[in-house]
């Protein structure tokens, strides 16, 4: 997290405050009404406030935008919207993100004009997304505004204006983005209640139609963006933000669509116009997709499709049988789900539910079929708008089953397993998917995975599943228990990751290998989880306090299936769950208040346990650095960077040796940042650690986690550095925030580790380049190692300098304080 290492944090804070004030002023000036709007949400009930604030913030975004530069406006209004929503100007997650970005941008700009140019260039595709996006909007807006009979005119008005505003062709794409972001953030809060209360007779046909489109559309964009991902993280961040915005907006629109009581003419017209854009939309998506697919992929897909069709047929037959047995005419969707949920309530209610169930989960899932084949997009869709209710429902269920089947089939094909295995699995999966209640099912992909109430169990099962998934590579038998590096899993653009949309950007960043530091990962995860909480809607017959922690756990588990998570990330996720469960979240005041409380908690956590902890550590560790010291450090650690920077600014005269290692070579970043902070530096590779250590007087290291048995889990190579330090009698100091303390124990580096991309080891001129497919050769790229406590002299935490063996004591303290 670059923000955390920026030397002048206080300066930044000041700047930020200034910016906020400015923005507020602008908002007030450009839209005097906005200020009154701003306060409305606080007094209004749970569902309302978002409505009021959305236009206000939009206005403020418009007003404030032209003065700020293109990059800042991406986050600015969003942040302003947040501010409008919330009475206290606490650093919101969006804000932190923004801080990072602006900080990075500032730095980038200083490094060279070329990178700035690259910025602008790369921002383009991201920015174009919203403008493309606007096409189907008119239909949606007309649909939305016309029928809403149940909602008051006062409420529909702003929505209407918002949508029309969005549909207006806007020359500057960034403007578009800024506008859409507030809607995304605020609308889900209020849109769900509308839906829950509204009678919805003919929803399914309506919602299932746009759902695949929603998935299909942004995908090509994402495709385009994943390629430059590695080149500059902030571009991706920005574009991903935009994407997320777009996705969120779409979902909002889908959810907010008040189901009409009777299909009016205008509506039917709208509906008839709606499919064409989809139809025109889908082929380009496929066209963009096609050249990127290899022949094998296509072949596999075809096979999978055929299989899926078969399976779907079987599922259909089964369901028909089941439906017949139940004798429930309109319960075609999920016979088992209905009695459990509503006890046979009004048909309108059930359909609303089923719709909700379909849309959120369908969104990511829908990406699959639409992205893969044009036929699939075309085939099931036309029949749906035309079909009567039960048939439509059935077809939707069928679609879902098909999707699942396809997913399964593909997986099976990949593993070269028998198709029969997939066949036995899929109907089950389909049935389970139908069974799972909860409209806002954040984890669509986990249907085939036993859903457990306890978060721990969930996490464990996810890990198990993750470990089982790709077969271990030949030769690396001793690491066959770990999540094997799989290039395809890095390709999140396939959309079948099953990670909830709120965590999607995070997954992208993880896949691109951008989040290597412990703090960066933790902050990114917390930010993403704040989004998840923000978008959460309590399902009926469920309590937020019970359901949300599970959702968080499930989402994190899904993420962990794709990418191994660091201990820090697991810790913060767990802490969040615990906080929701045990802190006094004002759930009785409604979703909005509760969610706001939780998001505030997240912000406070980031602030207290990460930011302030780093400051405290830099204070404590700074005391250990004296004039004339030669500090040896390894790789890149934001905490260590903070310490050295603070010591330098304190006026200490010392030198730093940055030791680095292939293949990560992140010490170069460290070196760059230290040199920028005017710290005299040497640089060398881990191979020559003996030489570097001779020069050094102290060793200062970062850590990924401190385990309960005193082991320091850290970036691979750290153990070797501390070992050499110990051998040459140099004091070894490890800097670690206490939130990274884990109750886990580990005695070697093999039981838990992360396997990186083995190809990183191969340099272009290496003779191994041709031998990668060799049977008897394997490449091992370990991410972590554990340093035994006897090699570490002291751990500097925000609580002070303690020995590594004090981890259990600190953990006990944490538990007693927090809960």
């Amino acid at each position, binding site marked *: 997290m670059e923000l955390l290492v920026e030397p002048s944090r206080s300066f930044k804070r000041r700047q930020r405050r200034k910016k906020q004030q400015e923005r507020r002023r602008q908002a007030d000036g450009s839209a005097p009404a906005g200020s009154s709007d701003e306060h409305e949400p606080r007094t209004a009930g749970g569902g309302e406030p978002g409505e009021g604030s959305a236009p206000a913030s939009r206005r403020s975004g418009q007003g404030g935008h032209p003065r700020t530069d293109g990059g800042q406006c991406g986050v600015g209004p969003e942040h302003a919207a947040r501010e409008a929503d919330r009475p206290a100007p606490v650093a919101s997650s969006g804000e932190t993100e923004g801080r990072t970005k602006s900080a990075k941008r500032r730095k980038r700009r200083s490094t060279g004009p070329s990178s700035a140019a690259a910025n602008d260039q790369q921002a383009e595709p991201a920015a174009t997304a919203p403008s493309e996006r606007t096409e189907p909007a008119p239909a949606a807006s007309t649909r939305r505004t016309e029928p809403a009979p149940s909602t008051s005119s006062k409420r529909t008005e702003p929505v209407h204006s918002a949508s029309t505003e969005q549909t207006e062709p806007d020359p500057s794409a960034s403007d578009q983005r800024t506008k859409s972001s507030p809607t995304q953030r605020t609308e889900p809060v209020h849109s769900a209640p509308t839906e829950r209360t509204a009678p919805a007779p003919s929803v399914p046909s309506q919602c299932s139609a746009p759902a695949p489109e929603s998935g299909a559309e942004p995908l090509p964009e994402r495709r385009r963006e994943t390629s430059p991902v590695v080149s500059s993280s902030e571009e991706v961040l920005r574009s991903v933000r935009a994407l997320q915005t777009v996705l969120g907006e779409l979902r909002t629109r889908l959810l907010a669509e008040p189901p009409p009581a009777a299909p009016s003419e205008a509506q039917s017209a709208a509906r008839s116009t709606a499919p064409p854009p989809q139809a025109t939309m889908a082929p380009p998506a496929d066209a963009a997709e096609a050249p990127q697919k290899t022949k094998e992929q296509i072949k596999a897909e075809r096979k999978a499709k055929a299989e899926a069709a078969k399976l779907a047929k079987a599922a259909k037959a089964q369901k028909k049988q089941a439906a017949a047995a139940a004798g429930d005419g309109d319960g075609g969707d999920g016979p088992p789900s209905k009695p459990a949920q509503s006890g046979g309530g009004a048909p309108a209610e059930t359909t609303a539910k089923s719709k909700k169930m379909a849309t959120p989960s369908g969104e990511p899932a829908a990406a699959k079929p639409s992205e893969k084949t044009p036929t699939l997009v075309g085939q099931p869709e036309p029949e749906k708008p035309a079909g009567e209710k039960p048939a439509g429902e059935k077809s939707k269920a069928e679609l879902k089953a098909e999707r699942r089947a396809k997913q399964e089939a593909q997986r099976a094909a990949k593993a070269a397993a028998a198709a029969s295995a997939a066949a036995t699995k899929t109907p089950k999966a389909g049935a389970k998917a139908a069974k799972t209640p909860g409209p806002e099912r954040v984890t669509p992909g986990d249907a085939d995975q036993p859903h457990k109430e306890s978060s721990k169990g969930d996490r464990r099962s996810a890990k198990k599943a993750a470990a089982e998934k790709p077969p271990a590579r030949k030769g690396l038998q001793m690491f066959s228990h770990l999540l094997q590096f799989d290039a395809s899993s890095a390709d999140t653009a396939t959309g079948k990751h099953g990670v909830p949309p709120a965590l999607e950007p995070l997954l992208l960043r993880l896949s691109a290998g951008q989040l290597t530091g412990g703090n960066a990962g933790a902050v990114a995860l917390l930010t993403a989880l704040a989004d998840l909480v923000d978008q959460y809607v309590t399902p009926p017959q469920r309590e937020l306090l019970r359901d949300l922690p599970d959702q968080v756990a499930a989402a994190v588990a899904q993420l962990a299936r794709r990418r191994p998570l660091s201990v820090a990330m697991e810790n913060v996720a767990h802490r969040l769950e615990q906080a929701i469960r045990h802190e006094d979240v004002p759930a009785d005041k409604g979703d909005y208040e509760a969610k706001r409380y939780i998001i505030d908690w997240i912000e406070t956590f980031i602030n207290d346990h990460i930011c302030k902890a780093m400051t405290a550590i830099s204070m404590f560790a700074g005391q250990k650095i004296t004039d004339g010291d030669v500090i040896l450090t390894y790789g890149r650690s934001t905490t260590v960077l903070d310490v050295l920077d603070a010591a330098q600014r304190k006026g200490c005269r010392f030198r730093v040796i940055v030791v680095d*290692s292939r293949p990560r070579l992140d010490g170069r970043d460290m070196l760059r940042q230290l040199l920028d902070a005017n710290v005299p530096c040497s640089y*060398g590779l881990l191979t020559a650690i003996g030489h570097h250590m001779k020069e050094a007087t102290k060793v200062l290291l970062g850590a990924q986690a401190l385990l309960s048995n005193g082991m320091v889990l850290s970036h691979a190579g750290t153990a*070797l550095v501390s070992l050499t330090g110990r051998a040459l009698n140099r004091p070894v100091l490890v800097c670690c925030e206490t939130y990274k303390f884990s109750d886990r124990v580990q005695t070697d580096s093999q039981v838990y580790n992360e396997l990186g991309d083995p190809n990183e*080891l191969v340099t272009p001129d290496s003779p*191994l380049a041709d031998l990668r497919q060799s049977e008897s050769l394997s490449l091992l790229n*370990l991410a972590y190692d554990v340093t035994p406590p006897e090699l570490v002299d002291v751990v500097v935490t925000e609580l002070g300098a303690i020995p590594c063996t004090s981890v259990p004591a600190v953990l006990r303290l944490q538990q007693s304080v927090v809960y």
Partner: protein
Amino acid sequence: MEELSPTAERLVSEFVRTTRRQGAVPSRQVADRTLELLRQLVSEPGWRQTAQLVGQLRAAGRQLAAELPTQPAVGTLVCRLLKMAREEHGAHDEVHEARPHGAPPSQVDSLHRRLTAGRGAAPAADLSSELTGLRANLLAGLDELQTELDASADNIAREALSHIHADDVVLTAGRSATVLAFLRRAARERAFHVLVVEGAPFGGGHRAAAELAALPRRVHVTVIAESALFAMMARVNKVILGVHTVLADGGLRAPVGTQALALAARFHSVPVIVCAPSYKLSPQFHRGDQQEGFLESVSPESVLPYADGALVGRARLTCPLFDYVPPELVTLFVTHTGGTSPWYVYRLLNEYYDQQDHEIVQV
């Protein structure tokens, strides 16, 4: 101090030039070329008495050691030839003098003679006489030495089966021809795993791994980066290393990275086996880090590419070539005569070199 004859001077300086120009070549090549030089020096008609030859050789040895401090083979082979010459002369003397004790001279040299002759080295034998067959004998001795060099890798490899067992996990670093021969020999009969540390930034590990992976099945090769060394050491059964120079105290001048590797091995109690051909055994000592020419450094381009100009200009970069590994981190030396502990290296030294000649390689 002895002076080099003009012809010898020319030969030596040309050798130095060529060797320097060649840059990094396997030490075996340098050894071969050194033998060639020694052949030329011996066959040069300028010397008549043994003393003259010894003087020439010592002078040459001194100059070579000073100018090529990182080529172990050069100094050691000169010492070998000196020892040969002295022995030839001694044997000749013995035949004529008919020593009272019939014990073999080399054995007596070390203990008995030193005790009886009082302190200090054995009295320098009188080398002033002229020996008739010396030149031919020395040339024959050099040929023998050549044969020994040629066979040394094989001889060391012959020990492989007594060190590597089936399904063993062996770790090696960088590329050493001797180690590769060792592993190849073991692979002929046993299946085992080899972990190869890549040895950044020189990439020797990659070349070694490629060669090992090309072997028919038996060996499974895994390439790891230095960073994974400590983590993987827990799974390693033994470390097999090549060496640049074995020092008189049993320590090593080894490719960079070996020190950390050996430390990690000791931390995990993994035996470190060093394959050392006899010409790498040097009577040199490690006298601290300031010892000139002991730890050579090269251009740090490979550490931080010059393309990264903004950083290169501002940071101090180092790219050393060698590490000193203290003898306590080494478990065993495998030479062509078998295994030797570090603390018995002095025995080998006495066997190969005459004590009087140790000083010429000290730089």
